[in-house]
């Protein structure tokens, strides 16, 4: 799996989504699963998947599916 596929997979499994749900509308709190608890799970999963440790500012800035990719790029994850 390439990075984009891994990233997509994490979102789909954390929030029980289909690939078609992964779009510009997918932002924090837009679905009931993506609340603060869901966010913790998402971050933990992404950290495990990409073997990184995210900084506080990046955790709280990670507000959407798309923003997340920009943020992960800072950790050397290329999409």
């Amino acid at each position: 799996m390439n990075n984009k596929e891994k990233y997509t997979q994490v979102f789909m499994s954390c929030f029980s989504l289909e690939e078609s749900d992964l779009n510009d509308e997918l932002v924090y709190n837009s679905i009931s699963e993506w609340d603060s608890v869901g966010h913790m799970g998402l971050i933990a999963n992404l950290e495990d998947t990409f073997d990184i440790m995210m900084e506080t500012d990046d955790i709280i800035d990670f507000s959407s599916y798309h923003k997340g990719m920009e943020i992960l790029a800072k950790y050397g994850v290329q999409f």
Partner: protein
Amino acid sequence: MKDFFSDIDIHSDALALIAEDSERISYAKLLLAADDIGRHLDKRSLVFCICGNDVESVAGYIGFLRSRVVPILINAGINNELLQNLLRAYLPQYIWLPVNMIGAFSDCKQLYHYRNYVLLRTAFSTRYSIHDDLALLLTTSGSTGSPKLVRQSYRNIISNANSIARYLRLTTDDRAITTMPMSYTYGLSVINSHLLKGASIVLTRKTLMENKFWQLLKEYEVTTFGGVPYVYEMLRKLRFSRMELPSLRTLTQAGGKLGAALSAEFATICRDKGIRFFVMYGQTEATARMSYLPPEYGISKAGSIGIAIPGGEFWLEDENGGIITQSDTAGELIFKGENVTMGYAQDYRDLSTGDDNGGILKTGDIAKRDDEGFYYIVGRKKRFLKIFGNRVNLDEVERLLITAGYECACTGTDDNMVVFYTVQHDCTDIEHYIIENMGISKAGFALVHIAEIPRNDSGKILYSDLSGSGSPCV
């Protein structure tokens, strides 16, 4: 004893609320708005207060109390089926709700608009009486479908707000930021205790996982906030120890047991930052709070729920109801105080009932007391868990799943419910069912497949035989 709704007129120009859009609302402005709302309802009537952490909800709530109208506080995010159940059970004369929710209430008359909220007169015509002492009602679980509510009296809410403000030593210079729903007893206690002291509250729907929350905290120089155990897991993840938050003076924790390790960790971090950290314990049945751990004992007695609040009293009883006098001996924790609520309600007929408890509450928790009189919770008598601060009744979850056609047994620990199921292919269906219908986050439970649910001869599930078996749902 002063109250936090009528006696707060004296604070007039002091700041009461700061809304998410930066609007500042003084006590005078809040009370004007509250009274404008309140005058539209008949005295001793029932209103569903569908709330969020916003000015309209607080103004409505205070307005209802001032006008002696009884609100049932309900989270704006409530599952629609549960809301319909509550409506049918309680037949309220009025509903106070956000304008974007009125779609379902076209048969109601719109009486008054205030900012984004509207007051509706329902079409229910059943007449019933409401006990003079009844101030408000709150849900206990909020998610699993039961319309069971706790009846809180004026004396309960005034007494608890005073006790809390007293042991936290809140002053008019304090400023809280909301971290929990107002319809949740802990969230409500923050509002009550701060208004009581003429302090201010930053109202926001933002969570700790959002940038804006921390911006608000810093910009308004927030001095205090509270959190359920999961909030402290989040703070640790966010490396709270490294944050620069000079305005913070007090952090509180309730809504479930914070493990001894995490408790000690935050007690230490807070001591190093000059923040007072209060671990606390309570239940909706005791209005909000029963005990607190004084910060100076946060490290040495990490894991303890502390001592009874001012005016309250604890003791332990054995299985025969005998009082336990020795230290380090487990028994059921009993509490006595003015904040012990009147009892429960299942429907509108229970609203005229008086005090069922006489000021004494059997908490349902098993506890021990050390030599210095500090209490520690060691277990629970009843089958429920706290998942991210919310009470989840395990028997209720089981019942709902079985009714939906999934054979199962529910057990687990706080923030970690375990559902044992037998039919293999039901796995993801059960997961979806729980998330959609019970408002329990995916992170709060796990599914384990087993061949057969262990039962005794009379068919009762043997929960103790469950742990350690089975294979996880993938």
